[in-house]
């Protein structure tokens, strides 16, 4: 019992509604064209739906509970709390995205991303790049944004409320997917580092093709799961010392073993679900952009200063690097020659293997890691067919990258390359550009840096390399689309 009366709930709801609407309008006004119309329309739909939901439900409840004022007050308070929580989610999750969109014009490589996504999904989508102050890359995809939320409110409404909400929903015409790709704002000027976005796009491909569903069901490893439950049951319960002379209470004496088991299953389930999706995205990115995915991911982990440790959402970094390298080698044909790039990749294998062997797994991570390890071959076999047609294997690399790299070495933005068959210049491939950038960086940085005056700081020379790559990606896209 919170001791807050229903009138207060309703008053603060009105105020929150008003300020959110005003905020959306103000943020929208500050956006340069083209505006994220789908997202804004979705936001307004959710806000309108919550207002309709609450007002219609109250009207209906006032009719149904006319003779019972206590019950009516409790129901109004409950519905107001639900409505306030939904508005709170909008405030916390959606408005920062709208605010971040004010800089979206800066990212002129976005058309290349849109085209890449279009190769893998026929679903309509609106995609936005979001510079984030968290040092992390993330995919935030909302399927049937707003219409899904409104449908949910409809399911829990009386007929009149349902009809009002359905009317709102039917008037909106939103695309199936609204997607945000987050990246660390500090890396906005590095085309090399932004290759990690391929992994996040892998999540989008996974979601639209429902690849992860093909990989399930999986059975959690029994031995480690039982160990986890036993360990949790025997964990001392903090702050719950028994009466003097008595044994220390454990969780098992406060909760049921079944309850502990349920909690363990829930956390393992969540972790397995997330780890599998990370593996899917890693493999898809490796196939989509080849060695650039390994190099960019490797540098990103280094930048984070991350220990070789698991998290709720990711397997251990070294395990993932090992997986990517194995995929490049065993399935995509890399590291089978004496080329410069193959040498660099091959050198990494023993180091990464040692790192993977050294990773420590405990608790839920141990259960999930053992489960994945046991099923890895079949998991990978199910992922590969999705990208096999577009895989940037070693032969693609050999036929694409050298000509682009030659231009880059000369300090020229590799926008076009000579197509010897056609006898004319054609747009360089984006994947080729990015890999040429990484190969130059990894194998002949000094040669490129030598093109600059002695007093130019090294990081500014690296900046020039990144600028050339950005320019090449943007301009080659124009060349490709020019009719």
């Amino acid at each position, binding site marked *: 019992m919170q001791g807050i009366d229903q009138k207060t709930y309703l008053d603060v709801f009105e105020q929150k509604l008003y300020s959110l609407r005003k905020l959306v309008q103000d943020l929208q006004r500050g956006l340069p064209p083209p505006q994220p119309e789908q997202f804004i329309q979705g936001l307004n739909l*959710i806000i309108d739906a919550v207002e309709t939901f609450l007002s219609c439900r109250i009207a209906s409840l006032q009719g*149904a509970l006319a003779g019972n004022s206590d*019950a009516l007050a409790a*129901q109004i308070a409950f519905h107001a*709390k*639900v409505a306030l*929580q*939904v508005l709170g*989610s*909008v405030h916390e*999750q*959606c408005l920062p995205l709208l605010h971040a969109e004010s800089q979206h014009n800066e990212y002129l490589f976005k058309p290349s991303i849109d085209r890449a996504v279009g190769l893998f999904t026929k679903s309509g989508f609106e995609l936005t790049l979001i510079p984030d102050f968290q040092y*992390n*890359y*993330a*995919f*935030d*995809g*909302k399927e049937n944004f707003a219409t899904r939320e409104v449908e*949910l*409110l409809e*399911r*829990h409404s009386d*007929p009149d409320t349902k009809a009002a909400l359905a009317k709102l929903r039917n008037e909106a015409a939103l695309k199936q997917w609204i997607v945000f790709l987050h990246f660390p704002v500090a890396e906005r000027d590095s085309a090399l580092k932004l290759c990690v976005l391929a992994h*996040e796009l892998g999540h989008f491909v996974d979601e639209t093709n429902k690849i*992860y569903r093909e990989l*399930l*069901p*999986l*059975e*959690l*490893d029994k031995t480690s*799961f039982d160990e986890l439950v036993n360990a949790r049951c025997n964990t001392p319960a903090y702050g719950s010392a028994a009466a003097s002379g008595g044994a220390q209470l454990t969780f098992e*004496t*406060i*909760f*049921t*073993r*079944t*309850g502990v*088991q*349920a*909690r363990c*299953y*829930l956390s*393992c*389930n*969540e972790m*397995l*679900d997330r780890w599998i*999706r990370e593996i899917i995205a890693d493999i898809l990115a490796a196939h989509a952009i080849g060695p650039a995915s390994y190099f960019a991911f490797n540098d990103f982990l280094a930048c984070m200063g991350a*220990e070789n*440790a*698991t*998290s*709720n*959402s*990711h397997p251990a970094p070294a395990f993932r690097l090992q997986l990517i390298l194995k995929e490049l080698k065993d399935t995509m044909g890399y590291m089978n020659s004496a080329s410069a790039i193959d040498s660099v990749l091959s050198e990494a294998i023993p180091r990464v293997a040692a790192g993977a062997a050294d990773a420590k797994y405990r608790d839920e*991570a141990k259960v999930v890691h053992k*489960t994945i390890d046991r099923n890895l071959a079949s998991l990978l076999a199910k992922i590969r067919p999705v990208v096999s047609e577009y895989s940037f294997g070693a032969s693609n690399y050999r036929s694409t990258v050298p000509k682009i790299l030659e231009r880059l070495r000369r300090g020229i933005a590799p926008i076009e390359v000579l197509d010897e068959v056609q006898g004319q210049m054609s747009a360089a491939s984006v994947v080729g550009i990015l890999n040429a950038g990484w190969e130059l960086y990894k194998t002949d940085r000094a040669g490129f840096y030598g093109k600059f005056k002695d007093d130019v700081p090294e990081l500014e020379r690296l900046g020039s390399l990144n600028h050339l790559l950005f320019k090449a990606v943007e301009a080659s896209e124009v060349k490709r689309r020019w009719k």
Partner: protein
Amino acid sequence: MIRSREVIPTSLEHALIANRVLVALASGDLTSQESQDAMEDGLRFLKSVLKGEELTASRSVEADSYKAALAYGEGVKAFELVEYKPGQNENPTTYLQALLKYASTIREQPRTEEAVQKLTGFFQIIRDLALEATERPIETVNW
């Protein structure tokens, strides 16, 4: 990394289901369409709880098992708060299956007071727990 927090999380949806069931039970009339829909959703929720139990026992992770696991977790918590007595009644299965039976048969006459009481007690806790459930953190790192 996937960052896809739901605007309306699953736990809030459970709170809405539970509330509708409570309103239907309190009204005394389970023949209206609204009450029937509410009891249907309540029944579906209980089935999801038991599905979660089955998945936990088999350790099987399926495409939608997370939602069932969440429901089961809430169901077990409710059992721990309502029925559980250390050293006596430790297994929630009997309790949950009894609730399922009550929910399946409550629309038939005569309606037992026990059924109404048990279901009301259970869904009240579910509603309160679900409404208070905070967002799970997006990322926690084990160093």
